[in-house]
């Protein structure tokens, strides 16, 4: 394997370059996935049937906490990648662990939020609006959940194998994924919650 030392480790081999480009294209597909979900949500937003509307069930507190947790985690994983580029394995692992903890916190609040919705009678089956809401949020939540397991697997590999072209490549791609989820959340926060509460 040819290693180009003038580049950061995650870009240093040809295979790594391929993987990063491939992942960017995958994120393009993910954008389409969420764009379709948003389209579906905006189409069904006001079709509440006999169920509650968004303004009736949205609560600002858990949503704000979730937003702060996820945005912070996105910042922290950036620090993690910075530490990785400096070759500081320990700092990087700490930042990645904090990222995952914040992600887990986000997920905890989201589960609380879902329980709340079901409690006030906005279940998956209630109306087109509730189904659209829970599906859109749920898809994002599933992505975060998947990310948690993925992140843990990467942390274990870094602990065992150190910062190699492979582990850094995986970490970098994971950070792209995590930032992407953050961007999606900003859209969810602005166009589902804020717009819905107005």
């Amino acid at each position, binding site marked *: 394997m040819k290693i180009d030392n003038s580049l950061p480790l995650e870009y240093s081999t040809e295979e790594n370059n391929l993987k990063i480009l491939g992942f960017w294209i995958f994120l393009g597909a993910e954008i389409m996935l969420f764009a379709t979900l948003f389209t*579906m949500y905006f189409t*069904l937003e006001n079709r509440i049937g*006999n*169920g509650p509307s968004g303004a009736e069930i949205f609560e600002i507190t858990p949503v704000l906490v979730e937003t702060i947790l996820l945005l912070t985690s996105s910042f922290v994983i950036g620090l993690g990648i910075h530490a990785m580029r400096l070759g500081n394995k320990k700092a990087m692992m700490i930042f990645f662990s904090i990222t995952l903890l914040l992600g887990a916190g986000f997920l905890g609040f989201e589960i609380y939020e879902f329980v709340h919705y079901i409690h006030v009678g906005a279940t998956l089956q209630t109306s*087109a609006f509730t189904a*659209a809401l829970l599906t859109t949020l749920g898809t994002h939540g599933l992505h975060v959940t998947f990310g948690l397991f993925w992140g843990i697997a990467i942390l274990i590999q870094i602990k065992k194998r150190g910062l190699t072209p492979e582990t850094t490549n995986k970490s970098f791609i994971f950070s792209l994924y995590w930032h992407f989820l953050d961007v999606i959340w900003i859209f969810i926060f602005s166009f589902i919650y804020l717009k819905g509460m107005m």
Partner: protein
Amino acid sequence: MDFFDRFAVPHPSFLIYASMVGIGLTMIAIVLGITYFKKWGYLWREWITTVDHKRIGIMYLLVALLMLFRGGVDAVMMRYQLSMPDNTFLDSQHYNEVFTTHGIVMILFMAMPFITFFFNYLIPLQIGARDVAFPRLNALSFWLFFMGMGLFNISFIVGGSPDAGWTSYFPLANNEFSPSVGTNYYMIAIQIAGLGTMISGINFITTILKMRAPGMKLMKMPMFTWSAFIANVIVVFAFPVLTVLLALGTMDRLFGTNFFTTDNGGMDMLWANLFWVWGHPEVYILILPAFGLYSEIIATFARRNLYGYKSMVVSMVVISVFSFLVWTHHFFTMGQGAFTNSIFSITTMAIAIPTGVKIFNWLFTLWKGKIIFTTPMLYSMLFIPLFTLGGVTGVMLAMSAADYQYHNTMFLVAHFHNVIIPGVVYAMIAGLTFYWPKMFGFMLNERIGKWTAWLMSVGFVLAFIPMYITGLDGQARRMYTYSESTGFSMLNMVSFIGAGIMAISFALLVYNIYYSIRYASRDIGNDPWDARSLEWATHTPVPEYNFAITPQVASTQAFWDAKKNGHELFKGKIEKIHMPNNSGWPFILGCIFFVFGFAMVFSIWPLAIVTLIGILGCLVYRSFEKDHGRYISVEEIEETEAKLRGAKK
């Protein structure tokens, strides 16, 4: 026994029982055959675990041919049912199932794997690469696709076929109107196969962007690679829509949500819109690679450069953008209003412009060319007039006001078969004939090949031109019978005869393969057609590593320049080559997906959860696996090269 009742076919008939027996016997015969000839190990080592793009391509080809015959039998059954008024060969329920599976099988499980076969086999060879960017993902793509195909195809003997049309419009497709599990199969089998297509889309884009031979700028790629690139960009942007759509449909059917229902706020038109936001680009995913193949074939047999290379590329890009902007034309009559319809009418007609540019480019390539009428060229020459006819009726359908007359009639059926058969199917068979010697080291018989092409075209004209007429006279599509007083019977009989002739032509294709295996010369060299691009520059059969030395490219037809104009393709000396290892996990993951899909179709939740954990487990295993591939040594390469060069003489 209640548990097993759900697997029974809800609407059985003699034909279904007969095919159950047939499938059972075939399976037993295959298993016994492989065991008798002791081929299990060979099958596992050389095919199931392979990550070689050429072998994966050939597996796609096998699936496509198999499905061509499955879908073809459906087609002949439909034509026979309609050949006489008040025919009782199929009842209405069976007719529904047959046209639904015919549509899905032909589009998603025949045409899609056929083009994916060409993507797999040709892209790395045309750009001078050793494999695709992610060989294992490529294997995974195939196995996901294969398992989705398998799951879909067992539907008619386990639980019942889908019967809501290939478009599966809601509310028809909901639990109330489609109570059998057939539509569950539709939602889940296509989801699994679609996942495979998505992954291969990402794979091919990365391959084309990053792995081209030195000197091959984007504007120096062979035209097929360009068309494949654009088609895969469309795949990556259109298939996520399908993913969401099928997931929502699954939730409506399995979890009682209200996305597409008619109460509690549900909106059935949302399905139709989202379906065609995916469905229309899908049409161009099929036709653009077909255009790419025609470009290769016409340039080769006109012995000229492709006319208007840049305008070919630009027109494909324009088509790919427009393909996302026309979806409403599939349901002009479903209440959008005049303004919306007008806009989509105009965008639809606008697509005819870049397509027309391509047709003229092919004609100008032929102009003053030294045309050689081989079988692939014959298909291309039949394609141009027949496809243009289909395009013109497409413009007729695009006029939204006039569409009220044609909508849901046989006119539409005639139109889309008129573009798909001469457009896609001819390209697939022409391409297959063209690349057959590269894959298998002998050519298909030209005489039988030309007979096949002419028979297919005669059959095609007889089968589909009458539909234009009955459609204008008001014969609705998807009706399982009609009365004698309608006067449709004569033309439908002609159509059935045409379908029969087409069936004979496909049988002739199979006979041609058999005949050529037995009698064709093996002494054909590496370049039997005197062709123009890189795939012909390597040996036949293509060695595992494709090219011993990475080729240097300076023009759009590097190999032609190397043959005629003294361009040097292979500079430098042989170095050791890095290749990926074979792996069994794509197949295993595919199998787990199959069981997961089956559990979802029948709502067997414990099994679904267990298999879902299995899928995640496979991913974790893969994440921790260390695999740096292997190297082929210089001696080994030189030995292979010497052997292949010797075999040439």
